[in-house]
């Protein structure tokens, strides 16, 4: 963590209001931090100072004129590079989009700017959000600011690292199988995956359309709630964005958690967890009990099938979503003497090996003769997993699990074994498949000083209670447990 001042949404607001700092000065300060730290961390892939300063000027103008300030006024933020930003290169961490500049803003980006946020730049990630360590980026890995020889997690590793290193007050990440929560856990910051349909996906460059979600990473639960409140809600551009009203998440944060029933699913505390992680998460559960939460032992019998199910569905959708990168209209094109040759060369050189692996897996799963055995079967299991959650939330208000079975591992330690890497998502993919919201909150550190994350899952559109428990946990000292 930087020794520089750790700004929050509230402290930025207070300082701007008191004219202790201007939005412009704050922007300059953050760019200075980035300039200093990013060469080592590699958290940012692109900066957009012109856009950031223009927005800062607008905010400073409002302050000068005494106008009311929007909720994220002047807050320096970072955007994961799979989210489209007008006029700012958006690569998805891939060579194939190295030169791609979107002509439009994602809905969430529009919401943030309308709310006064200052967008500093785009953050590194695994290529097309496929990975759990950020090592699949075509632009080099991100270093974990807490332990610089280790990964920040992925795929939103750049966003988590930027927030944890104080290079942005908050950031947008995307979560398909754990890509916000797991890097949040590994970098020691809260990361929230909202309900599927809570935040519009318009402008989020698709990996797996039925799983992809945009959500915030921040240094506090309160800031995560503030950002979520701004980006949540219906969007006419996304048919899957739900017309469910958005509660005031900030107002709900201080509701007491005493008496809330928290489910502890046996399946999430079985073998395969690092002992130091287990010790911290169990301590975390004890802390929640001390806060008055009622533990309820749960069985979620289909948990074991989640990883297989997830990797069939996600890769199937990815194989289709990534078909558009063909060299015809934008992005990389490598000429060939025939159309087919152009396709092969462009995609062959444009995509990295993990992306190719998943395209092949997904293509296979959708192929004639295999569709029923793989894709259709996976969809059925997905329904069963969602039912497990539905039934569980009949008895409990939230479900508590570890976020990741292991703390941040060393760069290069796991790259040779894709299957081992896929297991990093073992506690997060279930919530992704079920469409429910979940947050990872810092839950102490291992003896080696590596952050551990506690996952709090809630019922669909139950973000308010998830945030409320996370806030109570954080306030009670969860960070330093």
């Amino acid at each position, binding site marked *: 963590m930087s020794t520089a001042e750790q700004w929050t949404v509230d402290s930025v607001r207070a300082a701007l209001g008191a004219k202790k700092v201007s939005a412009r000065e704050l922007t300059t300060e953050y760019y200075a931090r980035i300039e200093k730290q990013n060469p080592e961390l590699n958290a940012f892939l692109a900066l957009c100072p012109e856009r950031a300063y223009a927005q800062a000027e607008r905010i400073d103008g409002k302050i000068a004129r005494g106008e009311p300030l929007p909720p994220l006024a002047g807050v320096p933020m970072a955007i994961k590079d799979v989210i489209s930003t007008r006029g700012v290169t958006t690569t998805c961490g891939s060579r194939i989009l190295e030169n791609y500049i979107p002509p439009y803003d994602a809905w969430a980006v529009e919401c943030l700017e309308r709310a006064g946020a200052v967008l500093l730049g785009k953050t590194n990630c695994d290529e097309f959000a496929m990975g759990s360590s950020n090592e699949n980026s075509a632009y080099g890995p991100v270093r974990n600011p807490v332990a610089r020889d280790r990964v920040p997690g992925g795929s939103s590793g750049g966003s988590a690292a930027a927030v944890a290193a104080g290079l942005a007050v908050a950031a947008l990440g995307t979560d398909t199988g754990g890509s916000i929560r797991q890097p949040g856990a590994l970098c020691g910051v809260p990361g929230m995956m909202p309900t599927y349909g809570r935040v519009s996906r318009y402008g989020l460059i698709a990996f797996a359309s039925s799983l992809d979600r945009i959500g915030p990473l921040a240094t506090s639960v309160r800031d995560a709630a503030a950002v979520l409140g701004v980006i949540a809600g219906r969007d006419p*551009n996304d048919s899957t964005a739900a017309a469910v009203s958005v509660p005031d998440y900030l107002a709900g944060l201080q509701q007491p958690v005493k008496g809330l029933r928290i489910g502890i699913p046996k399946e999430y505390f079985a073998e395969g967890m690092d002992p130091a992680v287990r010790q911290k998460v169990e301590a975390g559960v004890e802390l929640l009990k001390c806060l008055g939460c009622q533990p309820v032992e749960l069985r979620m019998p289909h948990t074991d099938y989640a990883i297989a199910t997830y990797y069939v569905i996600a890769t199937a959708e990815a194989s289709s979503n990534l*078909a558009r990168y063909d060299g015809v209209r934008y992005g990389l094109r490598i000429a060939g003497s025939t159309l087919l040759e152009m396709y092969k060369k462009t995609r062959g050189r444009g995509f990295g090996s993990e992306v190719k692996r998943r395209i092949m897996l997904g293509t296979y799963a959708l192929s004639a003769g295999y569709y029923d055995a793989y894709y259709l079967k996976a969809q059925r299991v997905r329904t069963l997993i969602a039912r497990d959650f539905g039934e569980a939330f009949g008895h409990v208000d939230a479900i508590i699990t570890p976020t990741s079975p292991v703390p941040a591992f060393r760069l290069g330690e796991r790259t040779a074994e894709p299957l081992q890497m896929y297991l990093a998502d073992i506690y997060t993919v279930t919530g992704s498949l079920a469409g429910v919201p979940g947050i990872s909150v810092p839950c102490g550190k291992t003896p080696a000083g590596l952050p551990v994350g506690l996952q709090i899952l809630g019922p669909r559109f139950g973000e308010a209670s998830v945030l409320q428990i996370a806030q109570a946990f954080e306030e009670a000292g969860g960070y330093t447990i």
Partner: protein
Amino acid sequence: MATQQIRGVAPDLLERYEPVIGLEVHAQLKTASKIFCACSTRFGDPPNTNVCPVCLGLPGTLPVLNRRALELAIRASLALHCNVQESSRFARKNYFYPDLPKGYQISMYELPLATGGWLEIEFNGARPDKTGTSKRIGITRLHLEEDAAKAMHEGFPDSDRNSYIDYNRCGVPLIEIVSEPDLRSPAEAYAYLTTLKQVLEYTEVSDCNMEEGSLRCDANVSVRRRGAEKFGTKTEVKNLNSFRYLQHALEYEIERHIGVLESGGQIEQETRLWNLGAGRTEPMRSKEYAHDYRYFPEPDLLPVRVSAAWKAEIERAMPELPGAKRARFIHDYGITPYDAGVLADTRALADYFEAVVRAGAPAKTAANWIQTELLRRLKDAGKEISESPVAPAALADLLKLVESGQITAASGKKVFAKMFETGQPAQAIIAAEGVSQISDAGEIERLCREVIAANPDNVAKYRAGNEGVFKFFVGQVIRATRGQANPQLVNDTLKRLLG
């Protein structure tokens, strides 16, 4: 149908083999905007001007279904007696081609919008197998999908090296209507396509303009020995984008199938393309069609729900369909089935006819005049009925003058010609040109007396029993009035005076 010059499949072959044909028809829906974005569907705009991030398939964009497109597809489904499903689903059809910017087409697959309908085709009294005048063709399914862009490989200075793509058409809403293999001859296929086109035009679902590509047709063709129950191996023939190609291509393909089978060969299941220039079907290179489309439900769109209430509302607003209109014309106006068929050919013409009748013209007279005078002149002028210079009320006024005997039918036709030319009402033309029929009995009698006085020889012949001479007197009187005399009155007067 009658105007088609069709060579026909050799009758001796058809004695032994029965063709089996099913059609897949794509019709462009008449919406202002595309199926999943707000871009215009206008035809003929400069290339790549009606495009946006969504229809260009830019990363991160999402489709949102155009409700009007869904409504028109439901209307078409109901007009074709299909069951509109309460819940249907879009699916992705995956394949690579530069005209497909997302690498997949959003279509429907396992759960189409509508299934199990039928369309009755009529043969104007001459069904090819002579067993009746109409036949029900089953509709397997009707679904919604998006059109692809237009790839252009010719016509540019660098066309030997480069291709160009116009994405204006990309994302234009289409319905695909798949028939059962119920068609048994190219003529039936032709009748099916014309009838389908008529229904889609009537319901204003599509303008069915084949030149602009808003109606396209592929055919599945096979033959089997007469009496055989099992269908033969089929081929799919693509690119049948005019009514004439359809029949020619089907005839070619049927004869080809029979030829292969007769010489002991087997039909290979394949996709073939109709080559208009060569007048034959040719196999597509296997790479061009050997796809595993890897269909799966489109995760970016929710299932399509059609409530019973909405279906009922669309049903209520359904315009009268061609068959019902023909029946009503025959029954209500006492016109012949043939006339009803011509007048109900398009909704615009049928509306015109009914407007003329509503404005006071007798139905049969209106039917005759529209078919003989109006349609002929429109055809000569290359105009549509909607562009007729003679409004229905104006035609009705003219027909009333004729009917009441104020002018002769012959004069009426001349007046009509002027009306068509100038757009003026009948009364104005008659006043200006003096073509009002002379019905004044005194004037007629005076003229008759003049003609009789001037032709004593013929008077003698007539009185001697040569009745043929009577026509001569009538003609002379009519000519003296330049066609304006009421013929009946002339007849009566001459008979009396010569009597």
